[in-house]
């Protein structure tokens, strides 16, 4: 098997045993990008020179017997909203098209310290707003399993790059499902850790109280490895939490008989694709077969989650995006006359339609006279949603559900209907409102050959139980071994 097609775990072992060099892995990945990225469109920027330099440095560290980490010498991609010092960070927006950050995000800093090879920046929905990556100002990203379909979003590039073997793993961000949904659409493992588990410092904000950096990997074990490198308290982020960071990948084995799995009735919604439902039910059957206790549970406020989310997220976004005013950096309208016109034209020309839509929604929700009816009410409902989960977790270890009501949809299919697009995140959004950890992993394929994802949700900071349950399932199934055929070339 080609090096680029292997998992982080496999490559790390090979590097430790000196069977391959970081440079060989990196060249393999760069070659793969050259072969397929024209079709897939994962990358906004490939840092060939930087990646080779980091690979050389990783090989030097390995040869010198210096302390290495699970990601030393491993090619990883970054969603283009993670600040990279000296490397463009655009958020797939025209307004930041030429913005070069002066500092590294904490996760980027940690990856560099750990000796990772950073291959480049991955496409996304503009400012992480969207569920299909069709909102990128720069390019379309296609689903490696069917180039006519979307990869999901907003971290579509991060998901498609891992699925297409254009990097070994990647980082994305999840505000309402932006990791789990594209992972599900692209047939890879997507992890959204507990809010506060990974520092947000340097993550260009969409909705601060919901945004969370997470991982895209080929296996659950890889997710455990990668998370252990980027997680942990950061004094630059007041909302990051001082929780110990376990070596999760050494704790993957678990007897499932002591596990209680909750099945939320509200998550098997009407209109759900039958193939999706069947695949998820089969996965639940696996846990039952292993002796786990399966329990039907209720999350009664789920109906309000999407509405709540679109008030909280847009309110925060309207404020977070105010800084793109053309004053200090980024795009500035060239022919504006006067300050107000400069602001208005810069923002009119710099932001895409979805971003504008959300800024307007959020501005409205926060405005005098509407605050109590919208923003404040949404925060109250958010508390109820959180309490729903607390109740369920008093008797369950994990909650299992589909990730998305349907497999990947076709490019252009929902572009003109924002509400339909918003509803694709109906099963992932409550997790962000409650700040919980959740994971998406492959649990089947539709007849048309599109991956189907299984969502697992756990208590705050109980990533361990997610990894254990998901790993057991993954060991017993072969879904994660499937590879898409791109451009006539499979592996």
């Amino acid at each position, binding site marked *: 098997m080609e090096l680029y097609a292997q998992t982080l775990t496999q490559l790390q072992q090979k590097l430790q045993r000196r069977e391959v060099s970081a440079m060989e892995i990196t060249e393999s990945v760069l070659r793969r990008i050259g072969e397929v990225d024209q079709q897939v469109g994962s990358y906004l920027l490939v840092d060939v020179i930087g990646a080779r330099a980091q690979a050389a440095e990783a090989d030097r560290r390995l040869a010198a017997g210096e302390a290495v980490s699970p990601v030393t010498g491993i090619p990883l991609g970054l969603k283009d909203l993670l600040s990279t010092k000296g490397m463009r960070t655009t958020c797939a927006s025209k307004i930041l098209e030429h913005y070069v950050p002066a500092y590294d995000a904490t996760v980027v800093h940690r990856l560099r310290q750990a000796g990772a090879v950073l291959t480049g920046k991955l496409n996304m929905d503009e400012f992480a707003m969207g569920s299909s990556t069709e909102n990128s100002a720069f390019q379309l990203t296609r689903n490696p399993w069917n180039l006519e379909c979307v990869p999901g979003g907003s971290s579509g590039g991060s998901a498609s790059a891992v699925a297409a073997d254009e990097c070994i793993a990647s980082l994305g961000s999840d505000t309402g499902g932006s990791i789990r949904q594209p992972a599900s659409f692209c047939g890879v493992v997507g992890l959204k850790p507990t809010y506060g588990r990974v520092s947000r410092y340097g993550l260009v904000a969409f909705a601060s109280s919901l945004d969370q950096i997470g991982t895209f990997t080929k296996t659950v074990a890889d997710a455990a490895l990668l998370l252990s490198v980027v997680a942990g308290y950061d004094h630059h982020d007041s909302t990051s939490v001082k929780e110990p960071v376990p070596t999760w990948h050494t704790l993957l084995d678990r007897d499932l008989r002591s596990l209680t799995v909750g099945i939320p009735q509200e998550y098997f919604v009407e209109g759900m694709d039958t193939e999706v439902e069947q695949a998820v039910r089969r996965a639940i059957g696996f846990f039952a077969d292993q002796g786990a206790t399966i329990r039907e549970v209720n999350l009664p406020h789920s109906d309000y989650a999407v509405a709540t989310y679109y008030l909280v997220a847009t309110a925060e976004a309207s404020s977070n995006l105010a800084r793109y005013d053309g004053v*200090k950096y980024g795009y500035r309208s060239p022919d504006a006359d006067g300050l107000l016109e400069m602001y208005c034209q810069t923002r009119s020309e710099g932001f895409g339609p979805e971003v504008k839509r959300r800024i307007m929604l959020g501005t409205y929700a926060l405005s005098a006279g509407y605050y109590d009816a919208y923003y404040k009410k949404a925060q109250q409902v958010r508390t109820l949603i959180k309490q729903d989960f607390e109740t369920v977790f008093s008797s369950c270890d994990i909650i299992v559900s589909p990730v998305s009501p349907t497999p990947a949809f076709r490019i252009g299919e929902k572009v003109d209907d924002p509400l339909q697009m918003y509803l694709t995140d109906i099963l992932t959004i409550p997790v962000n409102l409650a700040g919980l950890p959740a994971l998406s992993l492959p649990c089947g394929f539709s007849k048309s050959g599109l991956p189907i994802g299984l969502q697992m949700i756990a208590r705050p900071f109980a990533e361990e139980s997610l990894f254990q349950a998901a790993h057991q399932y993954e060991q017993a199934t072969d879904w994660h071994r499937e590879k898409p055929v791109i451009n006539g070339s499979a592996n």
Partner: protein
Amino acid sequence: MDFEVVIGLEVHAQLRTKTKIFCSCATSFGDEPNANTCPVCTGLPGALPVLNRRVVEYAVKAGLATNCQIVNDSVFARKNYFYPDLPKGYQISQFDRPICLGGYLDIKVAGQEQKRIGITRIHMEEDAGKLVHPEHLYGVSYVDYNRACVPLLEIVSEPDMRSSAEAVAYLRALRDILVYLEICDGNMEEGSFRCDANVSIRPFGQQEFGTRAELKNMNSFRNVQRAIEYEVERQRKVIAGGGQVVQETRLWDVEKAMTISMRGKEEAHDYRYFPDPDLLPVQIPAEWISDLGASLPELPQAKKTRFISTYELAEVDAEGLTSSRALADFFEEAVKRFANPKMVSNWVMSELLRYLNDEKTSIDACPVTPAGLAALLAMIEAGTISGKIAKKVFATMYRERQNDPAAIVAAQGLVQIDDTSALAEVVRQVLAANPAEVEKYYGGKQKVFGFLVGQVMRQTRGQANPGLVNELLQQQLDAGRP
């Protein structure tokens, strides 16, 4: 019709922390533009604020010193508006849950009873940057973000003041407290203590407030007083002329000595406040509050009252001495070594302050130490030198940073002449040399006595013991009386 004046004040006090409120950049004043900036205070994408613990400490101290209730889970909010020197497009401030609520200050205006002014709230916030408009480049603006993220306290009073004198008394009292706490340098000219005044008038007896104007840009106590007085008069004229006062923001123009309309109410902003999701509520354990309370210094009013009762000083002297913590400390140090408070007070208030003012030196940098002053005063009391000589010695002590007055007296031969026979001889010479004056004295002109004393002092270069000179002169004049 006669009107009652209603004034409420909003004060912005810049805190004397070494670093900014949400990052570790320096707060120093007057550095190269943008020298003290980082991704956080310039609001770069992805940067996050982290609260400076010292700012919370200072806010709690200010709250305790002004009798406020400390809110132990106050919340930072975002105040959203667009301005080029506001890097994030919002200011991080506190809104509906500020750190301090419901305090007061007692003020005293000369000739009136002491009065209590309510303090509505105190909250923490960040300052914005500064726009620079170069004179030679039309249409170009630069932004200096050194001041962005510098910590401020906003202290909002109740509309309890009824005159410009009360407003100034409140401002002085508030500034004295913040300076005493060593949390603000109180410099109005440099803008580290700035004030906006809400001014309205209403007919006496009316409950509802009149329409108010907000006055800005007053950078001294005198300007606050003048601006309010001008504004009250303006509103009086508007109403007398049958017009209505409009709610607006007005600037105080120092040159023209008048307030000028800056913006009307119709442009009022909707700031769309909401809790900043990047910052957690500020939790202040009760123990921390009590520790900070215990660490508070004696405050100006308490100190003044104690000075009056302990040292039996006049109110005006006690107020002067306690106007600065360092000056009060100087006084008390000197009194410890020379137990005549009245005399120490006189010397500090007259000689010492005169020199400091002339040289624009602060008391902290005073070359004369409390011990030096005490030693000097002891020499006067012991009769070693006269008060007049002491002033000369003091001048030397100040100029040469010499705090051993005895050494100066010895070196310059300034010891008082107590030798009766030597002084009697000088008196004789003076009487002999001024026959005309002696004649006048005998003719009933008592004033001449003083002139003759002066002549003796002159002959002895001021070193004669004045009491002895008086005695000897009287003796000789009486003896020679025709």
